[in-house]
């Protein structure tokens, strides 16, 4: 156990690449395809994000919590979290879920909140889930998923399962009650989980430096009794290696750890936010220069593994895939009215059947009811 922990610490480097994309440490021993996949996946997520923002501007979907700028976090993490492990998240980890098994069709259906959405159009846009790859439904309420992930990890331990629970949240979420309870419980219980704080510099308009007086988010871990590491979140290799190490450490029984991934929210908080009101363009320019995609493209190009033309071909291919799926989702039927009262409980109780039937009587009178919307038997 001690040796796993020591090995883990050795594998964690702040970064593997300079901002220009030159290696500054021994690269992990992987075939070149592995590195090319990291780039292709980052490019894919950027294409998805840009398409969603376009749909939002065109009024086709309501809201986007952009992941632009955090592709290295998402790809590095997705490739580190094995299929038996779990992903607990908030707004901006949909891209990681996509790479771990959430089908693109379900991703886009959720953005449309249509009848093909597995959550039945009930959640607002950008709130994904995917049972098959252990990605639970989450609420908009910041920080609530943190103790959930800890409880689930503890359950895994009690049930003798070998899975590890990765729990993602933002810099803002570290101020929530859930962060404190979650970190404390996990450390006391030695739960098999890894906390991942995606520090993108901002919580809507509040800068990370106004969120905490700590020198870093990683150092908060020490007070709870677990190791904390700060890693360059715009370097997918560094993200992957650090998270892999901490997951294996947790799996070995050494307990939880906190990983802070430093990145930047390139867009506004969401499609409804205008960041020019509160942040300096100079800061945005600085981070534009640190964009994980060109940085990694330079690395691959220098290696002779992928040139500019090949990168462009990847983008065109990704966009074709995404656009085809958008066409399918555009045509999906609206949600049946009955779904209003379903899934509140295991069975629709009498009072809800009555409320629905009364509503349905009026909808029918007004010609608003669709076939299949029929009243419940009482």
């Amino acid at each position, binding site marked *: 156990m001690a040796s796993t922990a020591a090995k883990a610490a050795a594998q964690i480097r702040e970064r593997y690449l300079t901002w220009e994309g030159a290696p500054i440490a021994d690269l992990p021993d992987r075939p070149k395809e592995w590195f090319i996949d990291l780039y292709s996946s980052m490019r894919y997520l950027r294409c998805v994000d840009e398409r969603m923002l376009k749909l939002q501007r065109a009024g086709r979907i*309501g*809201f986007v919590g952009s992941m632009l700028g955090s592709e290295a976090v998402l790809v590095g993490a997705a490739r580190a979290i094995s299929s038996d492990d779990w992903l607990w998240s908030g707004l901006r980890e949909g891209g990681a879920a996509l790479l771990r098994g959430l089908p693109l069709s379900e991703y886009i259906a959720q953005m449309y*909140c*249509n009848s093909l959405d597995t959550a039945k*159009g*009930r*959640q*607002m846009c950008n*709130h994904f889930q995917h049972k098959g790859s252990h990605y639970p439904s989450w*609420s*908009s*309420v*910041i*920080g609530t998923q943190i103790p959930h992930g800890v409880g689930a990890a503890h359950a895994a331990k009690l049930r003798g399962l070998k899975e590890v629970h990765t729990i993602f949240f933002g810099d*803002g*979420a570290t*101020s*929530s*009650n859930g962060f404190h309870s979650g970190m404390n419980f996990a450390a006391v219980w030695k739960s098999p989980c890894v906390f991942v704080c995606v520090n993108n510099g901002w*919580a*809507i*308009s*509040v800068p990370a430096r*106004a*969120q*905490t007086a700590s020198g870093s988010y990683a150092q908060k871990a020490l007070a709870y009794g677990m190791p904390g590491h700060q890693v360059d979140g715009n370097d997918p290799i560094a993200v992957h290696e650090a998270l892999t190490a901490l997951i294996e450490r947790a799996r070995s029984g050494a307990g939880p750890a906190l990983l802070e991934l430093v990145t930047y929210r390139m867009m506004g908080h969401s499609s*409804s*936010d205008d960041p020019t*009101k*509160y942040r300096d363009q100079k800061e945005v320019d600085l981070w534009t220069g640190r964009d994980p995609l060109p940085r990694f493209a330079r690395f691959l190009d220098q290696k002779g593994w992928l040139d500019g033309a090949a990168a462009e071909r990847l983008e065109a291919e990704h966009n074709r895939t995404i656009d085809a799926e958008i066409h399918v989702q555009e045509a999906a039927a*609206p*949600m049946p*009215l009955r*779904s*209003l*009262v379903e899934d*509140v409980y295991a069975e629709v109780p009498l*009072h*809800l059947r009555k*409320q*629905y039937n009364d*509503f349905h009587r*009026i*909808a029918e*009178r*007004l010609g608003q009811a669709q076939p299949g919307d029929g009243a419940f038997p009482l």
Partner: protein
Amino acid sequence: MPTLTLVQAVNDALKTAMRRDKSVLVFGEDVGPKGGVFLATEGLTTEFGKERCFDTPLSEDGIVGAAIGMAINGLRPVAEIQFQDFIFPAFDQIVSEAAKLRYRSGGQYTAPMVIRTPYGGGIRGGLYHSQSGEAYFCHTPGLKVVVPSTPHDAKGLLLASIEDPDPVLFLEPKALYRSIKEEVPEGHYTVDLGTLRGVREGKDCVVFCYGAMVPVAVKAAEQAAELGHEVRVVDLRTLLPLDEEGVLEHAKQVGRVVVLHEAPRFCGFGAEISAMIAENAIEYMDAPVVRVTGFDTPFPNTLEHHYLPDARRVLDAIERVMAY
């Protein structure tokens, strides 16, 4: 007189209060340079400085708890909770602390403070940007609960709330933030808490409502007029303390009552109105009270326009009450 939207009237009230009284301060998430996600606090940091309008870390529990401490120690905090849906991390501070402080200290310590928060549906916000949680708070002795529905009332009620000696939860109907404009007096004025407002005359039936449901009731009343029913609309404005005498008087005068809110029905505010009438005015009633409410479900997203009571559902209730 300037013509303001409801959210501009809130902003105007905050500025008016802060100009009059140096102990008034505003804080919460994103209320500073951004001016709040709905721009209710726009310009406050510029005019009053970072000491009097500032952003906090992301903790509603911290925001309300700290507001209580400030109120105990001589300030008049106006805390913003970004969406009413996110007030629940602060539920303990509101229900166990702010609301009970005066009572548990024998009046030695008090928490004169306001918690402002946008509530209600209509913006496609799904489960967690749409809820109407007034009933939880109306069940809390020691708290006042205010819900404006017009720019004029928003300003006057907010100023009265800030000056009130007790903690006030000020629920702002976000669906109305920009949908209506009206003339709002400049400078200071108040609208008394605990007083309802007659919105529309009518002798056949009365619809009691508040917040974002007021324009819905008015629309239904206009449609009912075409069917020959003269429907009165009453805006309760303050849910706690409720203008009980006013409610009973309207009910007795008309004899037919519809209660309308977008929150779920079970144990909702409509139940209180209905019970009050049953207990005090049953002999004046020509029909049972009918409630039009949201469903007893979480708040949906795609189907929110079906969840939210609309004029047609209210009209249906009016017709049922009239046909009884």
